[in-house]
């Protein structure tokens, strides 16, 4: 398992870096796919099989296809979109400082908390993370929130119609 963690972890970080470093949008999307698949492998290693499946089907599948569609629609050209520096001065440097600072803080927190000795890890019920367990929780305990998401979706649909529909009253 440790080997899986290291390989998938390094791939995930490399993929994430690729997303922001790549010059063409399509390469960014492909890096993102690498990142998402590596995360799915990490979920599998944590016995979260349902989450891993959803990660592959929804994110690597559906959402990435949408990304590619949008990129294909917007940029039929080969040249990179962004050549100029950002308008905010020192944005890149500040971003780097923030990212490194955040990473150091997170590592410090993880180290002082003692990785692998989390109470929740020891007391996992059997079948945790399986599709059956997830489905049971979703449709019993959290049935109310589940139904509520219908309203979130409805609001989003109305929003799309309002914001991109024809301009008339």
């Amino acid at each position: 398992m440790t080997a899986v963690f290291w390989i998938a972890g390094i791939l995930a970080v490399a993929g994430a870096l690729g997303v922001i470093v790549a010059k063409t949008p399509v390469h960014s999307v492909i890096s993102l796919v690498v990142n998402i698949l590596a995360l799915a492998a990490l979920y599998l290693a944590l016995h979260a099989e349902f989450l891993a499946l959803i990660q592959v089907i929804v994110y690597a599948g559906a959402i990435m296809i949408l990304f590619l569609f949008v990129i294909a629609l917007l940029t039929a050209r080969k040249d990179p979109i962004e050549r100029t520096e950002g308008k905010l001065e020192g944005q890149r440097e500040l971003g780097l400082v923030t990212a490194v600072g955040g990473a150091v803080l997170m590592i410090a927190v993880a180290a002082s908390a003692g990785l692998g000795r989390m109470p929740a890890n020891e007391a996992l019920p059997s079948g945790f993370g399986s599709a059956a367990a997830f489905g049971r929780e979703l449709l019993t305990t959290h049935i109310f929130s589940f139904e509520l998401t219908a309203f979130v979706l409805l609001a989003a649909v109305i929003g799309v119609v309002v914001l991109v529909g024809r301009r008339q009253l």
Partner: protein
Amino acid sequence: MQQYSLLLPEIILAGLGLLLLALDLTVSSKRTLAVAGVIGTLATLAAVVANFGAPATEIWSGTIRVDAFAQYFKLIFAVILGLVFLFSGEYLERREVKVGEFYILVTFATLGAFLMASSLELITIYIGLELMTISSYVLAGMLRNDARSSEASIKFFLMGALTSGVILYGLSLLYGLTGSTHLAEIAAGLAASPNASLITAAGVFIIAGFGFKIAAVPFHMWAPDTYEGAPTPVSAFLITASEAAGFAALLRILLVGLAPALPQWQAVLAVIAFVTMTFGNVTAIVQTRTKRMLAYSAIAQAGYVLVGVAVATPESVSAMLFYLMVYAFSTIGAFAVVIMLSNHVPSEEIEDFKGLARRAPAFALSMAFLLLSLIGVPPTGGFFGKLSLYRAAVDGGMVWLALAMVLNSAISVPYYFNVIRNMYLAEGPSTALGARPGLKIALGISVAATLLLGVFPEPLVGLLRTLHIMP
């Protein structure tokens, strides 16, 4: 069946949203929609009030909690929704906003706010938050011919999506630490096995995330642009209902879920409260546009309300809840006048208020009264609200914060008074201005409520004493 009767306010509100959706397709008169909205809101209010006496109950496997604390917030949200239905019509028609969709989305946003206040369960709180914010992103961008409205919506959306992620990060840490998404169980779990560094990390994420939602400094950068660019009724809704919902969820998460770690974040919140009110007030002074001034004023007011969270005693929570109610009425009323004025003068500069005392004396007088309430001058509700917050801060041992509140109230006098000076002392055009009955009713209700809460605060204070945030 009990679970349905306790859920009646939410059911009516959801039904109202769907009804408006159907009516929008079939009815040609947009005023019918507003009337239906007002009736539906009154029904919701009646259901909320009917549930007030019921003992605190958890239904749907503990995902919904019906108690007086939740009912009180629902009361605030429903009142705001009703006033928005009353005062928006003319503005929306003049600015060519899609009226039906506006009413539907504002109803759904209120439903989300209801659920944020009515749960001790993190997933339900989060879904409520998403329902409210997704509706709000769209509402902010509904002036499609105005680039500033699109900017408002895009900024709000990007910041909101990012901070929803930040909140989720914090919530998932809490779940990872305790194995539960229910705040009472989280509190028990945290007390049983304290893991200081991870609790701190979760607290930081949650405070930063909700800090964005309530526009606290330094997480406020989206707020002035969004409140300025959004359609004015939407700004009014965001500044009052959306912020109050953020406070409701923040109070529950911090005072119930993270209660074992209380001292860790109290000082942080006090500093955020101080910075927020000071920055908001100082920046508001130099604004020349009405909505931008009110946006910074809203940031400052969020700072006052945060004092109640930072002191974290039962008295400070009561004072804060009282202040939120007064603040909702004063702000909505002030926005009613701004809307009336911008229906005639679209530029929305503070200069536009010149001579309003002669053009529309009743409106000018109401505006002056409501601004005095926002400053905190007796006999307005704002005075009593600030006084109780001040007293709670002193009793809770945060004297410096109480002093900061007093100083800040003094700093806020110039920019509120600038509007009053323009209305009463400056020469302006002399054509008389008017408004539709709905807007006048909304303004009348706001002024009456602000006055009543200032002169007879006892009934509400008595009610608030019986509220308990803890399970």
